[in-house]
C-alpha cells in the first residue's frame, strides 16, 4: 500500500518539525499574527502575502528583527512570521538537520560555511558590524585605545573564541599586536557585557551593535578601521516561497536599513 | 546534718505538668519514686541531674548547693550519675571506654581512668566483657555497664530512671539482684524512679509517691504497704482502698457508697483496706460469721500465674484474688453474678 508509506513519511516530517522547534530553544518563536493556519504562503508576488514564514536568526539580531517583524505586519497583515533566535552555529546545525526554516540570518559569513550548500537558494549580505571596546560608564580604567588592554592593572573580558565576537576580537588584537590582560572568556556577548556593566571588568571587546543594544549600560571606545575586524551578516533564503521573499525584502528595504542602522549595524 | 545526702525542692512547669516536689534523703539511702505516667517522675530526675532548670526551689547534695534561685550548676558540674531505661551506652565505644568516659571527662588521665573502669566493670561482674562493643552485649549486660558507668565518677547522687523496665522478666530479676548488691556498697544517695512495685519494695529504703506533680505519700515500704493513702498507692501495693467515716463500733460508711465492718474500730475519718486475698467468692449468699457480704457482678478477670484477679462491682468496688480452681468451680467470667464476703478481721482502718 503505497499511500500508507507516504502518510507515514509525512507523519515523520511533522515530528521532525516539532523536534526542530523544540531544539531552537530560547523560548517559543514569536508570532506576528494569529490569523492564518499553518501552511505555505498563498499570495502572489507584488501584493500582500499570506501564509507563514519561519526565520532563524542570530541572537544579536533580536531587537532589529523584532522591529522588522512589526513593520512587516503592516505591509503583509496575513503573513505569519515566526522568528527563533539562537547562536549562529546552533542555527546552522538545526537547518542541516532538517529544521523547517525559510530564512536564515547569521552573524558573519564564516558561520554559514558548515551550511549544507544544497539548501541555499540565495545569500545576501544585509548588514555589517565592527568591533568596539566596551567600558563601564565613567570609564574607570581610563581606556582610550586598544593598547590600553595590555595594561596589567586592567581587567579585560572577551567572548570565548567559539563565539563570533571572541574570534573577531582575537583577530583584531593580533593585528594590533596587543597582548590583552584577559581575566575571563565569557560564553556569550551578553555575559561579556554584563561583566563590564557591573564594573567587574574594565573593558571588553564586542561589536558596536552590542554597545548600542546595551543602552548606556556600557560606553564604546572606537577601534581604528586599520585593525578592526568587520562582520558581514548574510541573510539566506532556503526556499522560494513568497513569504520568504517578503521577509528578506523587508530586511533589505530602506525601512529595514534604518532600523538596523539605529541599532548599530552598518551598511553591508 | 552531716549525713544529709539530698535536700531538694523541685518546682518547674513542663507542658501541662506543674511540678512541686520535695525530696530528702540520708547518705546511703535509696529513695524510690513511684507514680503514674505523666505525674512528674522523670522531670524530677532530669531536674536533679541539671538537664531541666528549676523555676523554683533548690537542690542541695552532700552540703553543696547545686541549684538555687538563679544560680545553677550545669550537669557536668554536678557530682551526679544517671542511668535510664535504655542503657544508652555510647555505641562507638567499648564497654571499658564507656565506663572510663566519666572519669576522662572529669580530668582523670587515660590510664587511671581505665583502671577505675576495669574495677567498676568487675564490681558488676563484667570484667571479661571490657572489650565488647555495646552491640555485642545482652540487654542485661548493657544495663550493668550503664550502672558501672554512672558510678565510675563517684557521684554523690545516683539517678536511676526505670533502670530495669526495658529488660525481659528473667533478665530483670537477675539484674535487680545485681543492682541491689551494687547499691548496698554505694554510700551516696540513690533516687530510683520506677513504676514496678517489686523494684520499689526490694530496692528502696523509702518510697515517695508523685502524682499530678506533687508528693502524695512518703514512707518506708512497710508503712506504705500497711497504710496506703491514695488509690494509686493502693493499686501499687495491691490493696482495695476506701475512704470512709467510722463509728466507734467499727461500722464504716464508705465515701463512694456501701458499708464495711471492721473488727478494730478507729472512729472518725479513715482509710480502710481490704486485701484481695481476703475476699471470698460464693455462688449464693454465704451463711455464718462473715459480716461483710455483698451481691456483686464480675466486670473483669485477669490471670496472674496460679491465681486470678477478679474485678467486682456492686454496693462497692472490690478486687478479689482467687485460685484458678475457684475460677473453674464458680464459673467466674465477666458478667457473672455472685456473692463476695470479707471477714471483719480482714478489714483494716487508719486515720485519714
Amino acid at each position, binding site marked *: 500500500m503505497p499511500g500508507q508509506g507516504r502518510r507515514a513519511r509525512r507523519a515523520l516530517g511533522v515530528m521532525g518539525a516539532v523536534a526542530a522547534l523544540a531544539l531552537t530553544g530560547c523560548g517559543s518563536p514569536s508570532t506576528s499574527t494569529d490569523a492564518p493556519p499553518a501552511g505555505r504562503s498563498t499570495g502572489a508576488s507584488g501584493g500582500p502575502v499570506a501564509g507563514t514564514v519561519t526565520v532563524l536568526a542570530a541572537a544579536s539580531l533580536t531587537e532589529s528583527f523584532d522591529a522588522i517583524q512589526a513593520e512587516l505586519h503592516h505591509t503583509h497583515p496575513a503573513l505569519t512570521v515566526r522568528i527563533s533566535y539562537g547562536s549562529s552555529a546552533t542555527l546552522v546545525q538545526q537547518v542541516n538537520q532538517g529544521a523547517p526554516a525559510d530564512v536564515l540570518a547569521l552573524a558573519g559569513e564564516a558561520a554559514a560555511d558548515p551550511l549544507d550548500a544544497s539548501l541555499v537558494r540565495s545569500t545576501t549580505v544585509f548588514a555589517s558590524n565592527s568591533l568596539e571596546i566596551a567600558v563601564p560608564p565613567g570609564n574607570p580604567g581610563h581606556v582610550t585605545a586598544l593598547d590600553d588592554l595590555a595594561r596589567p592593572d586592567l581587567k579585560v573580558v572577551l567572548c570565548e573564541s*567559539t563565539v563570533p565576537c571572541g574570534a573577531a576580537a582575537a583577530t583584531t588584537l593580533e593585528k594590533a599586536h596587543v597582548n590583552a590582560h584577559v581575566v575571563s572568556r565569557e560564553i556569550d556577548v551578553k555575559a561579556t557585557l554584563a561583566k563590564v556593566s557591573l564594573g567587574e571588568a574594565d573593558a571588553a571587546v564586542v561589536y558596536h551593535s552590542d554597545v548600542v543594544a546595551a543602552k548606556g549600560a556600557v560606553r564604546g571606545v572606537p577601534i581604528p578601521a586599520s585593525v578592526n575586524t568587520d562582520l558581514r551578516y548574510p541573510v539566506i533564503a532556503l526556499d522560494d516561497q513568497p513569504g520568504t521573499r517578503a521577509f528578506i525584502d523587508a530586511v533589505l528595504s530602506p525601512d529595514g536599513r534604518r532600523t538596523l542602522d539605529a541599532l548599530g549595524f552598518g551598511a553591508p | 546534718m552531716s549525713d544529709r545526702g539530698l535536700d531538694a525542692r523541685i518546682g518547674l512547669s513542663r507542658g501541662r505538668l506543674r511540678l512541686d516536689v520535695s525530696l530528702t534523703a540520708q547518705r546511703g539511702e535509696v529513695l524510690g519514686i513511684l507514680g503514674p505516667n505523666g505525674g512528674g517522675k522523670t522531670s524530677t530526675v532530669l531536674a536533679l541531674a541539671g538537664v531541666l532548670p528549676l523555676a523554683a526551689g533548690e537542690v542541695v547534695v552532700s552540703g553543696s548547693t547545686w541549684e538555687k534561685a538563679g544560680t545553677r550548676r550545669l550537669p557536668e558540674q554536678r557530682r551526679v550519675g544517671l542511668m535510664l531505661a535504655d542503657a544508652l551506652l555510647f555505641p562507638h565505644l567499648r564497654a571499658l571506654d564507656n565506663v572510663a568516659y566519666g572519669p576522662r571527662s572529669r580530668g582523670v588521665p587515660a590510664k587511671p581512668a581505665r583502671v577505675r573502669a576495669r574495677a567498676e566493670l568487675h564490681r558488676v561482674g563484667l570484667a571479661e566483657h571490657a572489650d565488647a562493643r555495646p552491640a555485642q552485649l545482652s540487654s542485661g549486660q548493657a544495663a550493668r555497664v550503664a550502672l558501672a558507668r554512672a558510678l565510675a565518677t563517684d557521684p554523690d547522687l545516683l539517678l536511676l530512671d526505670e533502670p530495669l523496665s526495658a529488660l525481659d522478666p528473667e533478665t530483670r530479676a537477675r539484674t535487680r539482684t545485681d543492682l541491689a548488691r551494687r547499691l548496698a556498697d554505694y554510700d551516696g544517695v540513690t533516687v530510683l524512679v520506677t513504676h514496678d512495685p517489686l523494684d520499689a519494695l526490694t530496692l528502696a529504703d523509702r518510697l515517695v509517691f508523685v502524682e499530678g506533680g506533687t508528693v502524695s505519700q512518703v514512707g518506708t515500704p512497710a508503712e506504705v504497704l500497711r497504710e496506703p493513702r491514695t488509690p494509686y498507692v493502693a493499686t501499687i501495693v495491691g490493696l482495695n482502698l476506701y475512704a470512709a467515716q467510722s463509728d466507734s463500733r467499727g461500722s464504716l460508711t464508705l465515701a463512694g457508697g456501701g458499708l464495711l465492718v471492721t473488727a478494730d474500730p478507729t472512729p472518725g475519718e479513715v482509710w480502710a483496706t481490704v486485701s484481695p486475698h481476703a475476699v471470698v467468692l460464693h455462688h449464693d449468699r454465704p451463711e455464718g460469721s462473715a459480716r461483710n457480704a455483698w451481691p456483686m457482678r464480675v466486670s473483669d478477670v485477669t490471670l496472674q500465674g496460679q491465681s486470678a484477679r477478679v474485678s467486682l462491682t456492686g454496693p462497692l468496688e472490690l478486687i478479689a484474688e482467687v485460685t484458678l480452681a475457684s475460677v473453674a468451680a464458680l464459673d467466674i467470667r465477666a458478667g457473672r453474678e455472685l456473692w463476695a464476703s470479707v471477714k471483719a478481721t480482714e478489714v483494716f482502718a487508719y486515720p485519714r
Partner: protein
Amino acid sequence: MTWRSRLGLGGPAAVAVLVLVLPLVALLLRADWGRVLGDITGGTGVLALRLSLVTTFSTALGCLVLGTPLAWLLARSDGLVTRWLRAVLTVPLVLPPVVGGVALLMTWGRRGIVGQHLTAFGVEIPFTTVAVVIAETFVAMPYYVLAVEGAMRGLDPRLESIARTLGASDLRYLRTVALPLVVPGIASGLALAWARALGEFGATITFAGNLVGTTQTAPLAVYVALQQDPAAATSLSILLLGVSVVVLGLLRGRWVR
C-alpha cells in the same frame, strides 16, 4: 510481593531508572571512543579537570569546617530564628545558579557590599580560583548542612544528658560522641556537596568567569567545547562521569550503607 504490587511499584521504579540512566548510556554510546583518550589528555581538558578537583575538594573541606558547626547549632535549637535561618539556608537550593552568581558579584564583586571594602586593600575576588570555590560553596553548602543537621537530629538526646552528667561539656560531647556517631551523615553530606560542586556551572561562570587554568572548571570546558567540537565535549563529560563515580563510590562504600 504479589504480581500486582510488583507491577505497581516495579513499573514506576523502572521508568525512574530509565530517566536517570538513559542519558548516561547515550553519552557512552555516542562517544567517539577512538578520540576519548586524546581529547582528555590533550588540550584544556586536563587543566579543567584538575581545577575542578582542586576547587571541589576545597569546597568539600569548606563545608566540613564551616558547615558542621552550623549544622550542630541548627540541630540543637528550635527557636524562631533557627527556623528562619534554616529556610534561608535552603534558598540557594532553589535559586537559579546564574542568579546566585549575580548575587555573589553583588557581594564579593568590585562594587559588591563586601567586595568594595576588599578592593580598598587590593583584594579582588571575581575571576580568581577563590571565586570558583566561593561559588561552589554557595551552591553546595546547603546540601551538606541539611544532610548533617538531619543526622544530628537523629541522635538520641538522652545520650547528651548521659554524657553531661558524666562530666562532659557540650563541646566534649560533640567531639567524643556526637561527631563520631554522625560520621555516616557527614560522609553522605560531603558526597552530596562535592557532587553538586563538581557539576556547578551557572554561578561559577557568572561570578568567576571562564579562563583556562584559573576559573574554567570541567563543566565550563564541556560547555565551551560543545560549541565547536561536540565530540570533545562528550569525551570530557565521560571523564567527569568516571571521576565522580569513583569518588562517590569510595565515599559511599566506606561510610554510607
